[in-house]
């Protein structure tokens, strides 16, 4: 599957309080959460984001609270994929579980600026900066995680497993 959109670029240690501040955790509908996505560090994000866009960040993206509201807000805001040098582990699980694609790549974030047009191919892990013409390779998913991704998330994966056991 090919994804295409413009980049929103951030630094290291973007925490889940920044992605969705806790004052909105009295909500849990994805579209309600999306309205406040990133607002404490980037008020423009939600005004400018369009379907298919990318978040690109440095190390440890999604650190802090385990709130699944964070990847839900990002996904519902229209982001097609998050590219980062590394991800915090709970955020990584949550994103895979709800079907928000992540690509881990050390080189790409250093060569992508906010506003650059990005294309990514989840199957090959290729990330292309269409603005500069550079292509980068993301770390492949481990086979086990690929099964969850292919099933469409953890709930679907588990449903398949449970029906297989019957």
């Amino acid at each position, binding site marked *: 599957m090919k994804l295409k959109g413009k980049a929103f670029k951030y630094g290291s240690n973007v925490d889940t309080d920044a992605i969705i501040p*806790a004052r909105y955790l*009295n909500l*849990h509908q994805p579209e309600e959460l999306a309205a406040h996505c990133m607002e404490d*560090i980037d008020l423009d994000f939600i005004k400018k984001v369009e379907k298919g866009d990318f978040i690109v960040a440095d190390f*440890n993206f999604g650190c802090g*609270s385990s709130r699944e509201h964070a990847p839900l807000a990002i996904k519902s805001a229209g982001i097609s994929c998050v590219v980062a040098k590394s991800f*915090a*582990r709970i955020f990584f699980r949550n994103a895979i579980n*709800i079907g928000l694609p992540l690509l881990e790549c050390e080189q790409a974030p250093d060569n992508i600026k906010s506003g650059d047009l990005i294309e990514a191919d989840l199957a090959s892990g290729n990330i292309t900066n269409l603005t500069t013409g550079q292509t980068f390779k993301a770390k492949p998913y481990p086979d086990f995680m690929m099964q969850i991704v292919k099933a469409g998330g*953890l709930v679907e994966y588990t449903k398949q497993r449970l029906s297989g056991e019957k």
Partner: protein
Amino acid sequence: MTLSEKILAAHTGREKVSPGEFINVKVDLVLSNDITAPIAIKEFNRLGVASVFDPTRVVMVPDHFCPNKDIQSAEQAKMMREFALKHKIVYFEIGQMGIEHVILPEKGLVLPGDVVVGADSHTCTYGALGAFATGMGSTDIAVAMATGEIWMKVPPSIKFIFHGKTGKWVGGKDLILYTIGQIGVDGALYSAMEFHGDAVDSLPMDGRFTMANMAIEAGAKAGIFHVDAKTRRYLKGRASRNYIEYTADTNAEYARVIEYDATAIEPQIAFPHLPSNTRPVSRAGNIKIDQVVIGSCTNGRLDDLRLAASLLKDRKVYAGVRCIIIPGSQQIYMDALKEGLIEIFIKAGAVVSTPTCGPCLGGYMGVLAAGERCLSTTNRNFVGRMGHPSSEVYLANPAVAAATAIMGRIADPQELAA
């Protein structure tokens, strides 16, 4: 095998597991709270199973925005309550409720050797008891509630050894803040932190809970201690089931071994906006504070309140400073009352609240206005964590917090003791 690998192997029905392997783990306890349970319940219902795997092993605690802070929080708490009553799981209503990571050990629900997963990042707190405990998201918890199992990647373990005896005002909070300051907020990413050394052995259980609690602030999957006489004493009369004490093999393989001289560690302050941005209190400088919070899953236990009271006794909170003290559970509140700690706090001009996570995550009971500064015994100081995006949070131990409340600026407890 390391301590974590031993526990994970036992819960996978295998002789041995190695770092990096994907395994399906049987869980002993599954936890969620009023902000993570609503999504977990939605996903649980999508799974199409009729019941939870074992109602005695599924726990829900209304602690984050409870007692309900607004209508929306009330709706979420209601959704959780109805699920809990329908499925007859372990549930603590307001009046019995405490902060989840304080109350579960207190009630003997978490035991050594357990695997515990919770839809709360600070689930790692239970490592203090020699359990492998880790935070996950709501969907993971939905699956664990339904099946009693969850997938994990076996983490590499990092061994931390703290040599020597800590100073008078130095506790578990300072050891863990110092460690995070050294290795960074992703210094133990995906790893299990295994804590060793004389300084750790001499820590009371409450100090160990504080250390394990903040393992996630270094990116870790778990923070874990071995069981000793103190753990057994803590569990006596509490443990709700039998338990197994696991021990790391002498030839266990660690990704890294990191050693610190605990005698040289001062009380630590984590400056905004990362828990790794630490300095010793002696180098904090003159920083005026608007609010002090003493409490949370990190430092809301009886030892923490005793420490704060030892400094606040016969003293007053600085004019214009709000000092908010939150016992972590009803039992701790009652014990503090009997010991006279609550009276000390109120006489000093502090406010004492019913248990809640409220202010730690900017929920309620102490939200900060633009530009305000708070010194807090909680665990995170990210941008906007306790309120307005331009407010600031400084993290410290309860003695530093009490001294700061009295002085109106970040203060070393030593200044008051002299």
